[in-house]
């Protein structure tokens, strides 16, 4: 039997919200597609001394309440943005520094357009307002690329990831990493991941950028095929009050591969 929770409690449970650190200023970290809140573990320690850090999982990821998932609500990014606003509401947060990776950058932007009063500053790590190429716009992807990714995800979710987890868990010197991967890659419901991937990669939030009133930072990686430089530049030039920093880190996850550089860039901005 499901226990009837207070609306606030139920939101915190639904999104597996965790609050850590000391300080008055709140930082809200939103993970990207395919990860969960533990993808922030290499950077959060640098902030917990001075900030109150809020971490959460999107519904369907990590330790969120999968039973709360509905295709109707999460069939577009607005459903996820709603959850961010609800988390802010539940914790009575104001003037939050929002840090969003990948698709979360746009989810945060949508939330900030809807309720700017909750936010003070926005940090976008590898943002992309539209992944598909369009007339006069380079997103980096053709539809066929994405179909091939979806197919690819299916084969790796259903085919091989089960053999992956035990090997990773055997990581003796840093056992928490095993837990991270097991949960990140295996606890995410494949159906949810499939839908989330489609919602993410078929989204188009270019028009929302101009509506942003909050000061923001775009962290652009070198050689990021998911959010190429042209996309970072697009975000920068179409968003009012946006600062662009190009990192030396390569790939799409600088907060994981180059946490030091990423921390430095965020701190310089906030």
């Amino acid at each position, binding site marked *: 039997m499901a226990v009837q929770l207070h609306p606030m409690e139920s939101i915190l449970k639904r999104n597996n919200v965790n609050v850590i650190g000391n300080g008055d200023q709140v930082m809200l970290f939103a993970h*990207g*597609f*395919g*990860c969960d809140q533990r*993808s922030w573990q*290499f950077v959060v320690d640098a902030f917990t001394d001075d900030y109150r850090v809020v971490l959460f999982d999107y519904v369907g990821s990590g330790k969120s309440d999968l039973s709360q998932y509905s295709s109707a609500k999460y069939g577009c990014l607005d459903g996820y943005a709603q959850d961010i606003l609800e988390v802010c509401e539940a914790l009575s947060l104001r003037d939050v520094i929002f840090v969003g990776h*990948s698709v979360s950058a746009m989810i945060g932007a949508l939330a900030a357009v809807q309720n700017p009063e909750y936010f003070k500053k926005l940090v976008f790590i590898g943002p992309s307002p539209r992944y598909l190429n369009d007339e006069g716009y380079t997103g980096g*992807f*053709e539809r*066929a*690329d*994405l*179909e*091939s*990714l*979806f*197919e*690819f*995800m299916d*084969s*790796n979710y259903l*085919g*091989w990831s089960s*053999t*992956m987890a035990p*090997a*990773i868990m055997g*990581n003796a010197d*840093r056992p928490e*990493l*095993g837990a*991270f*991967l097991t949960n990140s*890659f295996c606890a995410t419901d494949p159906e949810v991941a499939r839908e989330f991937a489609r919602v993410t990669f078929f989204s188009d939030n270019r028009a929302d950028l101009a509506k942003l009133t909050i000061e923001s930072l775009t962290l652009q990686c070198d*050689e*990021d*095929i*998911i959010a190429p430089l042209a996309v970072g530049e697009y975000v920068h030039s179409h968003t009012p009050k946006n600062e662009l920093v190009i990192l030396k880190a*390569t*790939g*799409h*996850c600088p907060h*994981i*591969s180059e946490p030091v550089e990423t921390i430095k860039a965020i701190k310089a901005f906030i």
Partner: protein
Amino acid sequence: MAKEKTKELLTHVIDPETLYDQAPCGYVTFKPDGSIIKINQTLLNWLNYPAEEVLYKKKFGDFLSKGGHIHYEMFFRPMLNVSGSVKELSYELQTRQGTHFHVLFGAVALKNKNGQIVAVNAILTDNTDRKRYEQELLSARKQAEKEKLNLQFLADLTPDLIWTSTPDGTIDYINARFADYFQVSERMFTQEKFLSSIHPDDQTEFQTTWAEKLDHGDVLSHDLRLRNYRGEYRWHLVKSVPHYNDQREIVKWFGSCTDINEHKLALTKKDEFISVASHELKTPLTSLIGILQVLENLKSTPSSPMLGDFIDRANKNAKKINSLVGELLNVGQLTAGQLRINKEYFNLYELIENCCQYVRTEHVFQVTINGNPELQVYGDAGRIEQVIVNYINNAVKYARNSGQLIISFDEHIEYIKVAVTDNGPGIPEEKIPFLFDRFYRVDTGGSQYAGLGLGLYICAEIVKKHGGQVGVDSVLGQGSSFWFTLPISPDQH
């Protein structure tokens, strides 16, 4: 000593470089950004690249398909960063020629003392075959599902009731029509339910036959009446064939029930008709035979005054037989679609006049003809005459006491309407729709209404051939008006 020797042997036999290059799997080492710094010959062979074009020039991601590359950036790299190793991802690599092969891909991160990754060692195993089997299995499953849907669609669309049963007769599938006919939900049906839906008169025979066929594995073909959900019985042809496996054992029975109700009723009607026709022919024939016997006896006295009378009567009966056979032949032609119409212009008034001659002389009818005496009509005069004579004969037969007969015709814009009106008893409304049907006889019985029930049917077919219509207007107690129309434009039919 032996251990020493083995060691020596091994150093001779196993050259680590050869082992690395010729291994049955691919080895590759790349920097954190993917730049390849070492690669073995096996993998180069698979990719079809010379080493100098790959080392320090290509990144591992360059060989991945786009989907794989995205996955590599989104999943593989973060995973490797946190865990230090990744095992068995399924990737697709592209060769120099642009063809693809599938690999199982595992990697270990080499880190410096600060925990930063300096290089990645990866091992790749070709699993193209396995992938292909998986793909085949997948497409086979898709194909099978598609076929299944197709078959279900066909099975549900066919007008027959379809079912299958296990060798012992348990029904394990029914199609949508079947479920509809008996209005059962969930497509569940039992043999008992089927048996109880059979008309009581047909049950025993069917059960005996069915049991016998089940026993012997023979094809079943049986007519019976099935009760539908409205409680109405309809004739069905039940067929069932056994399906054998390779061991000649019955694995299933496939069955169908075809609605043959109309056919069955038509057959019954035909049987009735044959009996009526035989009876109708028999009456004048019996008379004729009787008369011929009398004539036989009169042979010796050819001067008998009765002779002329008997010959007249014989003629009358022979004519009656001739006319009955003529009707039968007409029907035969109609059924075979061989009724020929030869159209020409003729004077309708004159034609009607001719038809009435015998009624005027033989019967006590007062016949009036109303219509333009000059009107020329385009049609088969002989056939139209046949129709009018038939209408008149019907009036004479069924409105004997009418005394009055009006034959009228008038011109309308597109057609000419001819009507034969009596002031007889009229026809009950419920019988009107069937009057022009084949084999329909007004079932009042008695010899005064003798006939084959074909006359009006033939009339209707003739008029139809001309492109016209037939009909009756009748009021009980006041009389009936049989009419037909002929289109005016000659090219209309």
